[in-house]
């Protein structure tokens, strides 16, 4: 996420809608991207984005620039996305299991095929769905959004070793599944 000038933040804190729109144009993509990769649902991602920006607008005056704005937004986004994930995980676990089964079958059939953007996105969702929310958020922040370990630790309020451990477990899971697919492919 690009750095936002303090003057813009102050303007938005004083209720200037144009300044706030400027912030949205810079941070909106990031917030929406995390929400979408965490929830795998466009409507949920839009809801998270909307909630996060309304919270930012409401709380910007009390923000006082104590923490980095970026970290503050990361934290709010991740918390909002995790809330949605937890809310939905209980409701749709069974439906997702079924969907996953179908996707596993499809994926091994089309490993060498040329896949368009939509399919690529679906594959990404499939990979992320294999992880629990804590691991998923670390992968999204590190590999999709490009945050450093330090930034992830700050955003999630955990120490750097925990970031490393979650990343390790997540990558091992993905590696194991990926290998299985390659072996399946080689057998054919």
């Amino acid at each position, binding site marked *: 996420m690009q750095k936002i000038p303090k003057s813009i933040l102050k303007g938005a804190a004083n*209720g200037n*809608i144009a300044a*706030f*729109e400027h912030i*949205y144009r810079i941070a*909106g*993509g990031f*917030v*929406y*991207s995390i929400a*979408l990769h965490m929830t795998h649902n*466009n409507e949920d*991602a*839009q809801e998270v*984005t*909307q909630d996060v*920006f*309304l919270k930012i*607008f409401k709380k910007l005056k009390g923000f006082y620039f104590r923490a980095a704005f970026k970290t503050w937004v990361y934290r709010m986004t991740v918390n909002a996305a995790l809330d949605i994930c937890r809310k939905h995980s209980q409701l749709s676990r069974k439906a997702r299991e079924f969907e996953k089964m179908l996707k596993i079958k499809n994926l091994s059939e089309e490993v060498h095929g040329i896949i368009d*953007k939509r399919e*690529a*996105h679906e*594959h*990404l969702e499939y*990979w992320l769905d294999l992880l629990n929310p804590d691991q998923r958020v670390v*992968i*999204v922040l*590190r*590999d*999709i959004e*490009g945050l*450093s*370990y330090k930034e992830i630790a700050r955003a999630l309020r955990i120490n750097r070793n925990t970031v*490393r451990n979650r*990343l*390790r477990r997540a*990558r*091992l899971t*993905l*590696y194991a599944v*990926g*290998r299985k*697919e*390659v072996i399946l492919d080689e057998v054919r």
Partner: protein
Amino acid sequence: MKCAEIRDLILVGYADKELGRLSMGRIKRHLLKCKHCRRFEVLMLKNVVSPFRHADPVTPPSGVWHNISTIIYEHHEKAQRFLDNIKDDLDSIFSHPVAVTVMTVALVFILVFGVILRPLPVEMQLVNGYLAEQEEFLRIADTGKEVYLGTATEDFIIQGNFFISR
């Protein structure tokens, strides 16, 4: 370093360039001579890291900002309407001279009788009386004369069969 340690560092640290120069160098040297670790690295980067790093950036649909700005404007308007209503009410009250006079008199009355001339509470009156008695008693006791002033302290001593002897 053993292969297991190298692979662990490839998973976390090496793939993200979050290792020191020394460790990075060691891993690179190991990879040059170990084909199993090299295969692990290639598969890891290809299957685990690369798909996410090359994911297409997503942007929120235009309707999201529209919703956010609409909610903010509505909230602003609601707050403004509330303030305007209060202002209108006050304007309508203060537009009548009789109402203004009555309110001013009531305000002065509240100020004078409620704040300035407010009587002391009973407890404060009792404390003040007791302190005045003590002050008088000590003033006379200082002169060395035996005088009965009828204070609560003297009564207490007399009732308890205590005698002041000189």
